[in-house]
């Protein structure tokens, strides 16, 4: 699990998306380069297209124009090198926690013993070995999302895409999950694209924050307004002035008139 920070470079160039020929552009002119191991958070109001960006990087949807590539190779379809963590977890309800985590390695053709080891490793990473035989519906939301994270990381992806992963959790669980994600990322070294509504969450976790505005309801395609570097180091104190200043600055950008 040593961090290999060589792979996981995402390149998004001139990407635009519309859902039919005569529909307005949902988002357009999107350029972003994410370095291997970087955590980039995308914030913005509903409908600005931030989730669409994530879904296009995953390959669930294709861009209407522009190019997206991972380590130089264009993205055509979903694949285990780009794990996706959904807001609603997306766990298979008929599989146990361990079987959910084992799902990807099994597809990759890993042998039984290697799979068991892999499952153990990643359940330990998210602190869930105790409930390996439980079914998802028996777990709390926070625990289910941990399973989803373990399930994705068990594929040793170069990129982890997270779409409001903690949006459905209560505030306390959410805080804990943020701390754990920061810790996990330090240990795994995967590039992370993280979509969130919460500016505080973005400042807490990200190396850079991408601020998006616009969207179809504004009559302007969703686009990047600004990209903010977060240089707060590893230990971040949400009550510090540096933190709150950044938070306020980003919030003003998010809410500013177009």
């Amino acid at each position: 699990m040593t961090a290999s920070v060589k792979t996981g470079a995402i390149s998004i160039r001139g990407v635009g998306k519309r859902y039919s020929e005569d529909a307005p552009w949902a988002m357009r002119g999107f350029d972003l380069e994410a370095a291997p191991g970087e955590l980039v958070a995308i914030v913005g109001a509903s409908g600005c297209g931030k989730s669409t960006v994530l879904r296009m990087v995953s390959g669930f949807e294709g861009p209407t124009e522009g190019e997206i590539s991972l380590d130089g190779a264009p993205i055509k379809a979903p694949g285990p090198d780009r794990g996706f963590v959904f807001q609603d977890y997306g766990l298979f309800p008929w599989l146990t926690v361990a079987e959910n985590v084992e799902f990807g390695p099994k597809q990759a053709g890993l042998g039984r013993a290697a799979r068991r080891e892999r499952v153990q490793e990643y359940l330990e990473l998210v602190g869930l070995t105790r409930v390996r035989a439980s079914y998802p519906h028996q777990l709390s939301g926070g625990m289910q999302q941990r399973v989803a994270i373990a399930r994705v990381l068990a594929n040793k992806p170069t990129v982890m895409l997270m779409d409001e992963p903690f949006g459905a959790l209560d505030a306390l669980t959410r805080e804990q999950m943020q701390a754990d994600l920061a810790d996990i990322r330090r240990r795994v070294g995967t590039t992370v694209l993280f979509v969130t509504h919460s500016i505080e969450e973005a400042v807490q976790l990200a190396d850079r924050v991408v601020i998006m505005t616009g969207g179809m309801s504004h009559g302007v395609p969703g686009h990047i307004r600004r990209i903010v570097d977060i240089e707060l180091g590893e230990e971040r104190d949400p009550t510090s002035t540096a933190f709150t200043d950044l938070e306020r600055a980003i919030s003003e950008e998010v809410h500013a008139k177009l």
Partner: protein
Amino acid sequence: MTATLTHEKTAEAAAEPQAPAPRQMPRLRSPRWGRLVLAFPVPLAVLLIWHLGVQFGWTLPFGIRMAQLPTPADVGVRLADLFVGGLLPSPFSGEVYQHIWASLVRVAYGFGLAVALAVPFGVILGRSALVMKLFEPTINVIRPIPVTAWAPLALIIIGIGDRSAIFLVFLAAFFPMLISTAAAVAQVPPRLLEAAAMLGMPRWKRMVAVVVPSSIPGIFSGLRVGLGLAWALLVVGEMVGINIGLGAMIFEGRQLNQIDLIMAGMVIIGVLGFLTDRLLTALLKLLSRGRPVLQEVA
């Protein structure tokens, strides 16, 4: 709890101070005796009213003349005679087993064939817009034709005998299972398919490994409906040109004007229908080995 957790650096303990032990599934059953007590009054009342109706020769709506009916006790004697023999002078005395067996075999063939075709076809139908567009109009035209209306045709084009009865059973079970499988499969949460895709599962495999388990409740309720209709059409299918079978036995009762025989046949079919339905449920529980796919299935 803390004792088991200390050796693990578990974040979950901190995140969820009351990290729940896996919750028990809600108990669906009330205590057994309570169920039994409640199960009896209604059937007992029905039997009592039936008995009184026969005794006093009531006429019910639809012009049902109860004086024509045997009493519950008569039907009971007939049932005993069918199973044990020696109580009534009848060619059916103690001979019911072969009829039951013949009917069960026909239901098994017809229903089995229907499952084998309807479920895979339903999965394809529910997941492919193209296949749905191709077949939906045809299905919609054929499906409303009552399967009973096929009976005379089946007798002519297939001929009198086993195959035509099995065909009717098959047809009766096929469409409800096809439709409910297609509907269940079309409603698989897209999220689960996305999850499988990003975990590296190829498209064709998702049809089997994600779509099917996720639509088990819908497929299963289709199977139950199909099985019920299979029994219904069995009786129709066995009424002409078949000598061995419960439908044939009932029809023979009609020819001989032995109403207690007819009613005994009805009771046996009812019980078999119930038992095979239970069997289907048990089979599914067995196959799913306690996985939560069955939560929605009683």
